[in-house]
């Protein structure tokens, strides 16, 4: 692993700096991956989780609920139907949160570039912190990826989750393009952005206007029984 670069440390009050560093140090050593197999790359996760490649050595564990998870691991292609669920899940995760896109499909469509059913570029819909190449990446590659994510977190460099708030309009626009203008989620992203003080130039825009116009009180989930 690379040595930690000192100059990257943030400036400011020495007390808060120490606190931040401690915070990041601890956070990087206890990461929970959301247990959601979105695509075929998920088949290499059980080896990573279990004794052979054992990611618990890095302090990384699977977690079943999004609320407690730190890492959203997108394991390959996301079909449009899954992407809706992934968006719901991502927005529910508490900040700071990290997205890892593994396999080719998350980068540029992968094998399914001709397919009408899969999303092609993950970073159009949510900010991605790390990509791991492969189709699918071997467990060792996933471990290497996790290690570099941990390093980035320790260095305070992995802050892409803030982009979702700062550029919410862009992400929402892409989501609307796929899901239609009626698309809405139970999470009030704009409210959260205001709350965290993460309102950027791209938070509001034409797409958030559409959202606010069409936003309906949420109905109970419709069952088709």
């Amino acid at each position, binding site marked *: 692993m690379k040595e930690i670069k000192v100059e990257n440390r943030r400036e400011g009050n020495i007390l808060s700096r120490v606190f931040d560093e401690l915070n990041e140090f601890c956070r990087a050593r206890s990461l929970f991956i959301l247990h959601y197999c979105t695509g075929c790359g998920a088949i290499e996760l059980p080896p990573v989780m279990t004794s052979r490649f054992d990611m618990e050595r890095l302090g990384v564990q699977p977690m079943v609920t999004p609320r407690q998870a730190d890492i959203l691991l997108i394991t390959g292609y996301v079909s*449009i*139907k899954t992407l*809706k669920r992934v968006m719901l899940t991502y927005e529910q995760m508490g900040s700071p949160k990290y997205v890892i896109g593994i396999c080719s499909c998350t*980068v*540029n*469509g992968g094998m399914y*570039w*001709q*397919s*009408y*059913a899969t*999303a*092609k*570029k993950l970073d*159009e819909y949510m900010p991605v912190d790390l990509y791991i190449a492969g189709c699918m990446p071997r467990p060792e590659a996933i471990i290497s990826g996790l290690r570099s994510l941990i390093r980035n977190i320790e260095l305070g460099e992995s802050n892409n989750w803030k982009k979702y708030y700062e550029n919410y309009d862009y992400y929402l626009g892409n989501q609307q*393009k*796929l*899901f239609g203008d009626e698309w809405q989620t139970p999470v009030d992203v704009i409210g959260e952005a205001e709350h965290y003080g993460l309102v950027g130039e791209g938070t509001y825009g034409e797409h958030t206007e559409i959202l606010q116009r069409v936003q309906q009180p949420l109905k109970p989930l419709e069952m*088709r029984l």
Partner: protein
Amino acid sequence: MNLSQFEAWLADIDHRIAGVEVTASNLNKRRNRVDLPADKLVLFLEAVKGEASFVHLSAISCVDWIDDGEFELVYHLWSYELNQLISAHIRVSRDPGEYQSIYDLYRPAGFFERDIHEMYGLYFHGAPDMEKFILTEWNGIPPMRKEFDSEEFVEQNFSWQEYNPEWLKELVAEGGGVVIPCEEQRFSRSVATDHGIDQQHSNWSGCDVSSKLCRIDSKYRGGD
């Protein structure tokens, strides 16, 4: 019923049900192809299930013969006693695209018919469930129909990475760069490059000059 009895039975079936044609596969002795008119299918299935023990519906496959304006439905039936497969082929018109369900005879048909309805838009009367299963978020035409151009759909709805790594910038500065982008290969467009390679040249399923050869300028004809 043993195998020889079955063969005799199958050979005789066209006397009982008009229009049934039986072709045994010469490659695999366990495959039997049957072609029959669409209205005789249920009659036929009742006979093979009831008399010849073909209780297992392996699959129903739909083939879109768009040029003929027909869907071909292939019912693959298996007999656990005879270890024989019958593929019953029928054709139904693409328009309006409806047929009758065989769910009452074979329960697995429920899934396959639902799938075909979803992917091809072929409606099965009498099926217990014709709701969407896989494509619940899909509003376009049934995607497996041949007229649906998936590449065009993708091109309209998605964008691709625009890579510009350092090595590429250097090559561009030297006068090089991407000459045949993968996009061109993909969408079979024709591009002339400075290498004189017309992309049409390099794709087996590419262009058509004959259409060009039987064209005359419309401008000229218009002015005539």
